[in-house]
């Protein structure tokens, strides 16, 4: 009985040690996440959301990969769920507003997007929301003048909005090139902002087409809006294909004539001498045979 008591005491002590270790492990603080929602409408089509998740590491924000965030429209319920997204290595995830929330979408001109993260082993739960008003940009062009009109949906009418800052640019492969020296424009009382197209001589591909773009970026009320329009204001660029010309870089049958002349002349001259010297051996052999 005494021995059993001893063993029991030892087991109890061991259990306490483990329990103590686990208690200590659970005490490790979880990280806090910063969740941000961005709203995008491109070319006045289906809106999309971009979620950015960050956390502070050594005093600096770093993107967090692999965080699953649930998105809702206006309220956190099954009927208004936009979807569940998981962040990539840049800490970003995006989703289009699905058809399933169309009914809810039509109920109002202003909406609030909710993002919730339930928390996991590493991070505490987190939430974010973004409220936007439905708006759009209309882009018109005439005589190398571009007019962008920003309209907000009020009740059932698209109403011009004054004082919205936007960019009017040419869409290029490496980024957007402003159409003139003014980097940004602001809409007037008619919701319009006009810019003169001063990028004359801009290469525009085979057909001379350029893509104009008007953008509202990170607007507190409207989020990110953009619209594009193709115009024929570029210079037609017809690439000259030199592939079949005689160049140093062409195929062997297209070697430059001067190069062929020089190199083959040298080649024939040197090998001519060598052939002559081989015949010379035959001549020496003949002389030897006559002796």
């Amino acid at each position, binding site marked *: 009985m005494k021995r059993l008591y001893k063993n029991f005491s030892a087991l109890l002590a061991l259990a306490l040690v483990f329990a103590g270790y686990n208690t200590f492990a659970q005490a490790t603080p979880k990280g806090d996440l910063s969740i941000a929602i961005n709203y995008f409408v491109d070319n006045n089509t289906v809106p999309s959301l971009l979620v950015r998740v960050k956390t502070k590491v050594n005093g600096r924000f770093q993107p967090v990969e692999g965080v699953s965030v649930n998105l809702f429209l206006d309220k956190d319920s099954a009927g208004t769920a936009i979807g569940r997204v998981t962040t990539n290595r840049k800490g970003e995830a995006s989703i289009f507003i699905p058809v399933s929330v169309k009914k809810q979408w039509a109920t109002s001109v202003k909406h609030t997007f909710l993002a919730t993260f339930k928390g996991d082993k590493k991070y505490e739960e987190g939430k974010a929301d973004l409220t936007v008003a439905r708006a759009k940009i209309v882009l018109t062009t005439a005589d190398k003048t571009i007019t962008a009109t920003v309209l907000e949906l009020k009740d059932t009418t698209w109403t011009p909005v004054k004082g919205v800052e936007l960019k009017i640019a040419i869409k290029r492969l490496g980024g957007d090139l402003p159409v003139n020296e003014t980097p940004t424009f602001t809409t007037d009382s008619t919701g319009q902002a006009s810019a003169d197209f001063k990028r004359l001589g801009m290469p525009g591909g085979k057909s001379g087409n350029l893509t104009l773009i008007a953008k509202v970026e990170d607007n507190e009320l409207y989020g990110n809006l953009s619209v594009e329009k193709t115009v024929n204001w570029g210079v037609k660029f017809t690439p000259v294909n030199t592939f079949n010309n005689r160049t*140093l*870089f*062409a*195929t*062997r049958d297209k*070697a*430059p004539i001067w*190069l*062929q002349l020089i*190199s*083959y002349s040298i*080649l024939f001259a*040197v*090998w001519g*001498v*060598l052939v*002559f*010297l*081989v015949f*010379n*051996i035959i*001549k*020496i*052999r003949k*002389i*030897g*045979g006559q*002796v």
Partner: protein
Amino acid sequence: MENSITDEKIIADLLPQKFGKAGKIWVGVLTVICLIGLFAYYRQLRYGLIVTAMRDYVSWGIYISNFVFFVAISLVGSLITAIFRLAGVKWGAPLTRIAEIIAVAAIIFASLIIIVDMGSPERFYYLFTHGRIQSPIIWDVIVITTYFFISILLLYYPLLPDIKILLRFKQKSGNGLHKFYNYIGSFWQGTPAQFKLSEKAINILCITIIPVAFTIHTVTSWLFATTYRPGWDSTNFGAYFIAGAFLVGSGAVVVAMYVFRKAYHLEKYITEIHFEKMGRVVVLLSLLYLYFNMNEFLTPFFKMKKSEEGYLNGLFSGDFSVVFWFAILIGIIIPVVILLFRQGRKPLPMFIVGIMVIVGAWFKRYLIVTPTLLNPFLPMHDVPASYHHYFPSWEEWAITMGSLAGALLIITILARIFPIIPIQETLTEQHEKAI
């Protein structure tokens, strides 16, 4: 009696000799190294170039270094035979055959090592069927073939009078060799007409081989200089390569002079004066090569362009610095210091210097190829860690060593078949002296 006793003595001294015990061991060792190299090449053919350490960035490794080394060493044929002859340098006459034999052996293995580097050997055939005359690689193929042919002719023509002498010693040569001598030179009767044609041919060859030799190494340098890379983007490359080639070739001749002199007891024919003169030649060439090296490295070092910084620092104080300073000191500077003293130009010190020059030159070629490829102008991104370094695999080492052993084997066999010092020329020289 056709010849005097002195003549018979000269002939007896200079006739090719059978291998002694040391000779047989030497040939055996070289053959084993060649066979290991062949096995490694079999593995390369079986599994592909993946058995090498060459990857996307270092696509030219030890094979191309070795190729440049062989091409360089082969240039000595044109220096000793042609340039000395045309310049009226008489003392170089006993060294001409050594130089030509080295040239032939080196150029054969330069061609073979290129085929090894290609991976699949049928690509060599495609060079002829699909090669472009605009490409320096095709120029190299053409010029190597031409140089090989000229070297063979330059070895063959001066041999003809010696073959006539060799044919007189059937018993010493043995049946097989006698038949071979008979096949290649029995028609030589030594008539004035034959001598006249032969002399004319040798003169033409001497004139032809010089531009071809310069071309072969200039074109080899253009393989590098026509590409835009740190360390290769140089207008100086052709001259720099040729200066280095003459130096390593002369070093090889010095080593061969010493070995043949010792092995065949040729002290009366390859004298200390020859070493003395070759020593002066090596000093001159070392200084010339040093000058080109300074041109090649000092100005980029002074500017230290950002794009070349990694490459230059790697050479001067980084991963390659030990090899770099070894090549410069052992291959160029210390030989100059030794050879400036009269005692340094004695046979044994000259032999050591020759070895130093050759070893230094081999590593110098390695430095020309690899550090540049590891430091491209566009920095390496998202590549496996192995792409950042290059150290040859055992297959590459075995093939390289096999090729070096193969070249030495060819030199050894040619020295067994043909007189290492031209007999007829030596006799003529003796007669001229007597008069």
